[in-house]
């Protein structure tokens, strides 16, 4: 029966190809939306790593969150190192991790911090060890892979987050490489807070007016951001308000900002999803018309099948099977195309050293795609199959040639 349905399906190759294309595009759009939104959300959650609050210089909370958690934007400025101690003194704060930004290496950000930052993401050392003193660096897995650096090698950072003058006189020594974690750690160069001060202490001498996380020996130390974990959920209501009340400080709650970001991204997702649904509706209608036409064109064949002993339900099932085969093929192609689009997006993001998306494999929601295709096929086939079920065999077989 399957072979027969397959042959009947391709007896009108142009119509079948058009229906296949429409169904595939619709399902690919749905797959892309399901996969991309799930992956982006998972990627964001992975990078949040339990960070409840980011504290930075006064400015946009979204910018602070993007700079501090995802390392996607420039920070709003620097804050005094003393802020870190102040935050740690707060009873509602369980942990406060400092970040000093300002330099990069081959487009990857150099982050001055403490080893706690690695622990925040559950990072593991794959080769070498953690830094123990300034000007030692631990590379994220992606940085090590693309730069080819390994423990014992030396490199110089560039001034600024997008690459600028090289700090050739301040070379970092690679002491460790992190294992791949799929988080933001993969695309960072981690070093001691003091490394950033050291680099920029000298740099300031040559470049007055520099606003990065460095400071002169005689000036108060600065950091760029502080990542905070709450001791208690009550902190969510109190701590941001307290931070914002401090002069020069701005609190950004990643959960809130991420939700806001997802709402912004969500508008695009909805448009794409709507486009997919319109495509699917058009495909369903097209399949319906094609099947109706097929039943009319092939009613003699179907009547003959009845005469050869096929029960009416088997003849109706043949029509449904045709639709299901088409849907099955479209689901496979749609899933493949959807994954292909996500892979393209992933490549695009990787080139921009942005958010990491997930690997291959079907996510739970994607099982909806074949189900959606099958449901649509059965809906489109219902009336044509009923017509096939009700064929007037006697009349059809006696019709003159």
């Amino acid at each position: 029966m399957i072979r027969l349905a397959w042959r009947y399906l391709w007896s009108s190759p142009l119509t079948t190809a058009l229906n296949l294309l429409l169904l595939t595009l619709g399902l690919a759009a749905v797959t892309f939306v399901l996969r991309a939104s799930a992956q982006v959300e998972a990627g964001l959650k992975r990078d949040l790593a339990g960070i409840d609050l980011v504290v930075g210089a006064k400015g946009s909370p979204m910018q602070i969150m993007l700079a501090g958690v995802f390392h996607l934007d420039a920070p709003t400025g620097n804050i005094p190192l003393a802020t870190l101690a102040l935050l740690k003194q707060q009873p509602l704060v369980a942990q406060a991790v400092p970040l000093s930004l300002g330099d990069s290496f081959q487009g990857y950000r150099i982050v001055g911090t403490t080893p706690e930052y690695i622990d925040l993401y559950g990072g593991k050392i794959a080769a070498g060890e953690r830094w123990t003193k300034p000007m030692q660096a631990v590379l994220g897995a992606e940085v090590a892979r693309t730069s080819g650096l390994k423990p014992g090698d030396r490199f110089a950072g560039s001034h600024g987050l997008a690459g600028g003058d090289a700090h050739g006189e301040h070379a970092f020594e690679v002491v460790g490489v992190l294992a791949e974690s799929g988080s933001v750690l993969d695309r960072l160069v981690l070093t001691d807070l003091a490394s950033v001060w050291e680099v920029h202490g000298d740099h300031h001498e040559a470049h007055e007016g520099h606003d990065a996380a460095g400071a002169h020996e005689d000036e108060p130390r600065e950091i760029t951001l502080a990542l905070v974990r709450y001791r208690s959920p009550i902190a969510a209501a109190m701590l941001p308000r307290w931070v914002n009340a401090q002069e020069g400080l701005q609190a950004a709650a990643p959960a809130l900002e991420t939700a806001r970001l997802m709402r912004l991204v969500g508008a695009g997702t909805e448009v794409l999803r709507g486009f997919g649904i319109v495509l699917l509706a058009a495909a369903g209608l097209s399949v319906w018309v094609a099947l109706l036409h097929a039943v009319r064109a092939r009613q003699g064949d179907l009547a003959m099948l009845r005469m050869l002993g096929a029960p009416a339900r088997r003849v109706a099932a043949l029509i449904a099977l045709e639709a299901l085969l088409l849907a099955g093929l479209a689901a496979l192609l749609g899933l493949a195309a959807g994954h292909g689009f996500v892979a393209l997006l992933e490549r695009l993001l990787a080139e921009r050293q942005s958010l990491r998306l997930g690997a291959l494999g079907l996510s739970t929601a994607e099982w909806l795609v074949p189900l959606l295709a099958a449901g649509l096929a059965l809906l489109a086939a219902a009336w044509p199959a009923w017509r096939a079920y009700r064929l007037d065999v006697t009349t059809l077989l006696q019709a003159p040639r």
Partner: protein
Amino acid sequence: MLAWGGLRYRYAGGSEIEYRDFALPAGRHLLLRGASGSGKSTLLALLSGLLRVQQGELNVAGTDLAGLSPRALDAWRGETLGVVPQRLHLSEALTVAENLALPALAAGQGADPARAAQLLAALDIAELAGRRPHQLSVGQAQRVALARALMRRPRLLLADEPSASLDDEHTLHLLALLLDAAEREGCTLVIASHDGRVIEALSARHDVAEVVLRGESPAGRSAMPTGSRTTYWLDEGAT
């Protein structure tokens, strides 16, 4: 092999047709004659189990069709009946060999390529197995349709107006093919026709009984025998 008694059929409009009792003697084939509207189509549909027997008895190949459910009738038709319809209805989407697999597929069974090859060889069309129906001549298509009808070794081979659209030579050739096939396969041949050429050709054979259906169906009412050849007809106005 084939018998009916008290057989009546009531149409949706309320009119009714009645067939006089009949039994086909063993070892004989049947020519069913009747013009359009004579009730021939209804009788063929009843014989092939496409219409259910409403009243009376209809026994085909030892099975009382009146007692079968629609589902059982479908299965019975596939197992017992081979049909060469007026329009051949060879599927254009399939090759000749695949068309011959349809009877098994219709019954939900696997194809029997050996049987198909045997029949194609017996009908001298073995080389056509891979062709599509539109690549066949009328005569070749008739043979393929006959092979398809014989695939499941039917006990009754039913040909409905087989000579329609055939010239004289092809008509005689086809009749010979049908009779030969029926003899070879050991099945009873039922030919429904109102073609004078068919009637003339079969009238000369003593192994062919004849039923004549007369009268305007559904007004026609009965059938009765005449002469040495078993000829039946529907009397106009009889009840």
